[in-house]
Each structure stands twice: as C-alpha cells, then as structure tokens.
C-alpha cells in the first residue's frame, strides 16, 4: 500500500518532525495526517526505522518525519541520537511532540528537552479520551502558558483535534505564532560556564544551532556532540574548569 519514494518528491514547503515517548500515539497521528502518502526505510547508516509522509494543508505541502519514540534526547541509544540529531542539526520547521494525557509528568521530560533545542514546537496532548475515562482533566491553556508553546489536545485514534493540530503546525511553520519556550535556568556556576562558552560557539556548518544547548552538552561532556563540532582551545579552556559537579 505504501507509495514509492518518488511520489514524495513533490514540492515540500515545510518539514515537521514528530517526536514523543514510545506508545503515545505518534504513529496514529502520523497515519491520520499523512494517510497513504508515506514511505518507510532506515535512517542513513542506521538500523533504526524511518517513516516519512506528506500532507497538504492550507495550500502548503508538509513533509512529516516520524522520529523514533524516545524518553529522552540525551543520545544514550541509537534511537535517541537519531531523534536528537534530526531536531538539532536538520532543523525542521516545526517539531511536534506527542504526549500522553494520562501521565503527562512523564512526558514533559522530553518536551523540556526539545524546548531547550528549538522554539518551533507544538505540543500535542493525545489520549484525551483515556484521560477522561480515568477522571483526569488536562488544562491545556495553563500547560501552554507554563511551557510557552502552543498545546493542542487530541484523541488521535478517533481523529479528534487533528484539524486544530494542522492549523497550529501551519501557524508555527509560517511564524505567525512565535513560541517563547520557558527557559530552564541552572545554578550559578553552570550559568556562568554557559556564559563563558557562548562567545566561542559559532559552529559554521550549523549557524542556527542553539548555542545554549550546545554549551550544556559540552559541559556534560557528551561525547556524541564532538562528531559535529571542532572544539577550539578557548572552549577546552572553559571545559577543564570543574564546573559540572555531579549530584
């Protein structure tokens, strides 16, 4: 039933990355939006499944990329690295994060991690029917205020909320809505180290890369990040200071 890759090569206006914990309805959202206009394969050089598909909305064509379901973006597994690298380095026009209304707290971890990388985010609170069944009410407006990004409630399995979702994605893609994600501030030493690093973090290949995020990963000593950047001496000088106390 899947169409071939060639069929996807229509004019694409906006690219939307779909992220979320496993089992939140990511594929259900993906299928509902793209219908049969999908193609599956592997991520280049990886054994991780990649699904992409297209849909048209409001006169534009959207390419939707289904990222691997992960709890985190800290590159501890192949899946996490694929998801993180896509959001960081491919810089989609919108990152759509699907969450589970029945246990939102668990899902906000990933949301906050994405918000540290990009402001072009839409949060989808899915499984609203299940939440209602369990007597859980989600205040979507309050959540949106707290996070600083648009939040849309859905019951993807029944197609509920998907029009609003497409509309919200469109508004963020076109920068009609410019989300202002909540900035997570760390303690004084870490903020000091970030400030010291920032002026040295011009990564030529990725001019739009979020430098604050990059600084945090360097301070953590995340080895996967060194594949992408060369660390000039100035950065190393900051990094050898013992700023990142564990615990």
């Amino acid at each position, binding site marked *: 039933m899947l169409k071939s890759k060639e069929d996807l090569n229509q004019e694409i206006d906006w690219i939307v990355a779909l992220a979320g914990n496993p089992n939140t309805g990511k594929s259900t959202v993906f299928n509902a939006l793209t219908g049969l206009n999908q193609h599956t394969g592997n991520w280049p050089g990886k054994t991780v499944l990649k699904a992409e598909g297209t849909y048209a909305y409001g006169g534009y064509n959207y390419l939707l990329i289904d990222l691997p379901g992960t*709890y985190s973006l*800290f590159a*501890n597994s192949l899946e996490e690295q694929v998801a993180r690298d896509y959001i960081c380095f491919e810089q989609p026009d919108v990152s759509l994060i699907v969450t589970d209304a*029945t*246990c939102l*707290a*668990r899902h906000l*971890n990933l949301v906050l991690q994405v918000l540290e990388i990009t402001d072009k985010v839409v949060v989808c609170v899915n499984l609203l029917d299940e939440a209602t069944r369990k007597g859980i009410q989600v205040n979507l407006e309050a959540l949106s205020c707290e996070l600083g990004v648009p939040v849309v409630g859905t019951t993807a399995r029944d197609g509920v909320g998907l029009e609003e979702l497409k509309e919200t994605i469109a508004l963020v893609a076109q920068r009609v809505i410019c989300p202002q994600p909540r900035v997570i501030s760390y303690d004084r030493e870490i903020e000091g180290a970030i400030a010291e690093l920032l002026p040295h973090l011009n990564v030529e290949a990725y001019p739009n890369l979020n430098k604050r995020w990059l600084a945090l990963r360097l301070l953590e000593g995340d080895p996967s990040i060194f594949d992408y950047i060369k660390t000039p001496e100035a950065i190393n000088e900051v990094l050898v200071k013992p700023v990142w106390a*564990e*615990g």
Partner: protein
Amino acid sequence: MAPSLNKIPIGQVCRIKEVTASGILRRRLLDLGFVPGGSVFIVRRAPLGDPTAYLVRGALIALREEEAATIDCRVKEEEDAFC
C-alpha cells in the same frame, strides 16, 4: 538511613529521596522517571532476583539491581497515584 530501591519488598510503595548515581546512569534514571519526590511501586522481581519491574510515573520500567541500588527511598504507608 534511607533504604535503596533494590531493598524494598514487592508490593510496597516508596518515594524517591535521592538519585545517587552520576553521569550517564543518573541521566538515564531521571529520563526513565526516577525523579526525587516521585512515587515508585515495586511490581515484581525476576526469578533470580534481578531485574525488578517498577511502576513509575505511569510506566512499567525494569532496573537491574545495581541501578536500583543508586536510588534512595522513603517507604510510604500508602499511595494512590503513581503517575
């Protein structure tokens, strides 16, 4: 002294006091939902005692004994919400 998570019997509920692991393991435990202040229900242990399945923030997560040993807990009388 706070008991670590691997010492809590099946069927009990506890609250996480502190995650003493560092580095990548610490990060992974936090990502899996083992966050200070949160509740954990000890669901079952594999026949040889390792790993153990925990209900934490609405998901069932299995940890090895040495991983659970880095999570300090307070045992609670009763708990109704795990999410």
